């Protein structure tokens, strides 16, 4: 099995497996966030659970970070290898004649998503880690009150129109990344997506709905705070 992941196809399968994991995570993340649109209480409770449950924090969170880093590093390594395989470039190349823009520019949509993740970590993850594990405050309460801080923090972050704009752009690029990535991951795993119309249709719905959900949340909180 070790030899498998060293082969070109094995690496492709590894990319697909990490992609499946990340696509599943996006569903969970959206499901939690979307509760902020209709129930402050539910959102706070779910956030507190995710933020303090040892299984989530100590097992799932590291796996997720490893998954993101792996997907990025592997994507980058494969891109560099592929550039080497090309050799001399064409003077004239009509890529649009036979493939989609999304499929040809995964590295760029991926890099944009990575840049967004840096912003997202600075916005939410690093302060969260600081409060919980450096300051040691695991209560999830606003200092000196009996109220959860999560919803407050969420609203506060989306006051800035620049941040909301950056989030929206990032999610549009995520949609473009998913539009190729979803069916591509299945194809890499050996599922013949060409014949399975359902997968393609489902992939399209997923690729539009997930980013759209996050965009709606960001814009909603921008205008309702």
């Amino acid at each position, binding site marked *: 099995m070790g030899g498998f992941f060293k082969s070109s196809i094995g690496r492709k399968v590894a990319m697909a497996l990490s992609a499946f994991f990340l696509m599943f995570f996006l569903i969970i993340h959206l499901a939690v966030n979307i509760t902020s649109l209709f129930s402050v209480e539910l959102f706070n409770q779910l956030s507190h659970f995710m933020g303090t449950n040892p299984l989530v924090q100590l097992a799932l969170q590291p796996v997720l970070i490893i998954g993101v880093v792996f997907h990025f590093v592997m994507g980058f390594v494969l891109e560099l290898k592929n550039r080497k395989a090309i050799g001399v*470039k064409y003077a004239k190349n009509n890529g649009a004649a036979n493939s989609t823009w999304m499929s040809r520019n995964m590295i760029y949509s991926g890099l944009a998503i990575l840049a967004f993740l840096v912003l997202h970590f600075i916005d939410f993850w690093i302060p969260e880690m600081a409060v919980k594990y450096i300051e040691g405050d695991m209560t999830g309460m606003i200092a000196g009150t009996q109220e959860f801080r999560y919803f407050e923090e969420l609203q506060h972050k989306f006051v800035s129109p620049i941040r909301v704009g950056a989030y929206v752009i990032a999610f549009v690029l995520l949609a473009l990344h998913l539009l190729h990535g979803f069916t591509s991951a299945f194809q890499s795993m050996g599922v013949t997506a*060409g014949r399975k119309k359902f997968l393609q249709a489902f992939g399209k719905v997923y690729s539009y709905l997930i980013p759209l959900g996050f965009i709606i949340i960001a814009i909603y909180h921008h205008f309702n705070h």
Partner: protein
Amino acid sequence: MSGKGMNLTLKIWRQKGANDKGRMVDYKVNDISEHMSFLEMMDVLNEQLIAEGEEPVAFDHDCREGICGMCSLYINGEAHGPDRGITTCQLHMRMFNDGDTITIEPWRAAAFPVIKDLVVDRTAFERIQQAGGFISVNTSGNTQDANAIPISKHDADEAMDAATCIGCGACVATCKNSSAMLFVGAKVSQYALLPQGQVEAADRVRNMVAQMDLEGFGNCTNTGACEVECPKGISLDNIARMNRELLKASLK
């Protein structure tokens, strides 16, 4: 015919040999009939160059009826030019217009080095094929009749579809990663679908993929460009099947 044909400007890659740097050179050809094939147009150019005492443009060709896989050429940014399901010898000049400028380049891939002008070395495909693209048959005199082994119509058709690959290399030339997976996928599939191919199935896919990687072809990113540009319409499903075959072989 005279005066009714097309006048064209050709931008052609000229390279004296493997070690020459190479460059694009402009040529003019006049009075090209729309009924000519693209290669016949190239013949007209070469006649002209020979008459002028210049070195003709080297390009690969053989059967000129779309079956040998010898002709190549990256024409106006597409393998085998703008038409679909054809090789360059089947590309008609009626696909172009009077006054057009046509860019003609060799297949580009690190694993397909240029030999001269538009001719590239595609022997990497031969080495991949030799690594496992065969079945061993006992020819001691009591060989079993192939027709005695029942094969479903569906499998036979799919195997035949995969076997129609002529190994021209358009998939590699088109791929943004110079990946050879459509070619190898087809060559793996044509045996994987038949009972005769089962004996060596695991070794075949392992060795052919290893050779493909060794030759320096890139990784597939599922853009699907190869399938579109393939003159024989080889399906992307063959790549998926090769992935399954390799996974299966690795789990053994």
